[in-house]
């Protein structure tokens, strides 16, 4: 696939690096017990969020899972607000009430951070449905893991969006495992695009380790979505780290992991940009440095953040409080 224009290509690489640096930082901060609760990292999967979200307009909506840090960052939530959220600070994008699994941001139309597997698919359908009914052509993008496809919510949502022509882009991040359960032990039909196509919507498989392939596929899919139809994309990918910080990661062979690491989307795309002379080594190093600085600042911001007063505990249960 042809490279996007140089500036776009550089941004794609830079943004994958930003996600990577942020998440590696999160892992350290978890060890330091600055971040708590569940922490799910998408290291290795950065090309998907990056390629897709770079095709979005500011008023498009994104609905994510608990493995959503990168998606939030690229949709425009600041690293500061994300990091503060994981620190449980009032300055966090969810006021410290959500944590890693529940990043939210109304300004950038980032609808979570949803932690019931499959539970956010109907929600995404509803957002798309509202746009359709109100005659707006903006898009809604819903990310989810391949594990979600066994849930009844997947089935019900696909049928509804297909029947009603609801403009949503469904992005399956197929990293081959749902925690320790491999795809072939959880799905009778392991070709997920075929499975989705059974609902009568356009569906195809994309190399999720190649940001250009993702970027191109997203453009094509979004053209259909903006014209008012749902699309399903399966992105084949792999997480280089364990499911969460609690996972000893004993169910995958070292060889399998190492094999996939040779396809590291940042590595391979960086090499390509050098090969095609869009960026040199120093240019790439600068991207890493800049991301490092951004995340240093984010950590400092989070550290300096304040705690929501305990007296405010019961706020935000209802928007309209009853006296």
């Amino acid at each position, binding site marked *: 696939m042809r490279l996007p224009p140089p500036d776009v290509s550089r941004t794609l690489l830079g943004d994958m690096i930003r996600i990577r640096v942020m998440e590696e930082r999160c892992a350290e901060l978890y060890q330091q017990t600055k971040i708590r609760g569940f922490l799910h990292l998408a290291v290795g999967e950065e090309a998907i969020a990056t390629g897709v979200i770079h095709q979005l307009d500011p008023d498009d909506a994104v609905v994510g899972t608990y493995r959503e840090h990168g998606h939030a960052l690229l949709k425009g939530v600041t690293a500061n607000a994300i990091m503060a959220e994981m620190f449980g600070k009032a300055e966090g994008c969810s006021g*410290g009430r959500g944590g890693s699994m529940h990043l939210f941001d109304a300004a950038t139309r980032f609808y979570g951070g949803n932690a019931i597997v499959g539970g956010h698919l*109907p929600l995404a359908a*509803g957002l798309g449905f509202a*746009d359709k009914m109100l005659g707006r052509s903006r898009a809604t993008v819903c990310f989810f893991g391949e594990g979600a496809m066994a849930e009844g919510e997947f089935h019900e949502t696909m049928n509804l969006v297909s029947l009603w022509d609801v403009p949503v882009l469904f992005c399956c991040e197929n990293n081959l495992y749902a925690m320790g359960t491999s795809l072939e032990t959880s799905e009778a039909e392991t070709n997920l695009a075929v499975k989705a196509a059974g609902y009568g919507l356009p569906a195809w498989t994309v190399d999720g380790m190649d940001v250009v392939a993702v970027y191109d596929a997203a453009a094509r899919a979004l053209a259909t979505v903006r014209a008012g139809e749902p699309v399903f994309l399966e992105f084949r990918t792999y997480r280089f780290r364990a499911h969460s910080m609690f996972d000893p990661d004993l169910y995958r062979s070292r060889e399998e992991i190492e094999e996939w690491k040779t396809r590291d989307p940042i590595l391979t795309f960086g090499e390509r940009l050098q090969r095609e002379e869009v960026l040199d080594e120093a240019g790439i190093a600068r991207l890493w440095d800049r991301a490092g600085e951004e995340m240093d600042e984010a950590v400092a911001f989070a550290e300096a953040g304040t705690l929501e007063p305990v007296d405010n505990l019961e706020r935000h249960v209802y928007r*309209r409080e009853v006296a």
Partner: protein
Amino acid sequence: MTEITYRDALHDALEEALSKDERVFIMGEDVADYGGTYAVTKGLYEKFGRHRVRNTPLSESGFVGLGIGAALGGLKPIVEVMTVNFSLLALDQIVNTAATFLHMSGGQFNVPVVIRMATGAGRQLAAQHSHSLECWFAHVPGLRVVAPATVTDARWMLATALDDPDPVVMFEHATLYPTTGDLDDSGPVDIDTARVLRSGSDVTIIGWGGTVHKALSAAGELQHQGVEAEVIDLRSLRPIDDATIMASVSQTNRVVVVDEGWRSGGLSAELAARITEAAFYHLDAPVARVCSREVPIPYAKHLEDAALPQVDEVVAAAREVLGG
């Protein structure tokens, strides 16, 4: 005051809502040309068209979730889950999404959805079609739960619920649809307060939804026996209007709660607990609970009748708290 059926009152409320605000739409199983299982939406499809009065496939989790998302997207969805029995399939969406979104997002995303459902037993529909699970919903912070028991509330609660920025679950007792009552057409009502439907100083009887009418019948019967019962229609099951209840209890010092739910862990327990907490030193007797017996509701009429709270039991409970 005009006489109207509960069904028509709901119908008129829905029609008004659709007329007033383009963002309102109705979605549910057979709500369109069929007119709803209980004929509540009859004619609305013809008047407002298939986009705004929408039949869904049998997919309770999917379409309730879609309604929640649509509310987040700027619409005002009225989602009809045919009955509470099927709402079990949608509970994850209601509890884990609708009820949590505002809080999890630090106050950014409210969910102005209205979810209507029929509830209750009394029509010989047996164990899978006779639940009264209002108490489950009333347990969940983030939800508002209302139960219109009168035609006036059936007519006016909906508009208030739709204006509410938070998710509102509305329970309609299935035996009420064909009943008639006098409509107070002075317009919108609140969805927060309980209402004293009948005044009396000897004993307070609290009901909601389908049990309000049993409470009123019992009060009538008690009057013959020389007992003046005050009847409170709870109306809002979450939040519970303590002020109205406690004002009554402070006069009567005796309470009977009538709850079609099973006794153990039902809403009657919450009412008994909070009344006792607030009025312990005034109460002349423990709060009495008249509830459903703890069985899956059986089909046979005589067994179903025996399983559900009945007027004579309410009368007996009132006499008991009055000291026999």
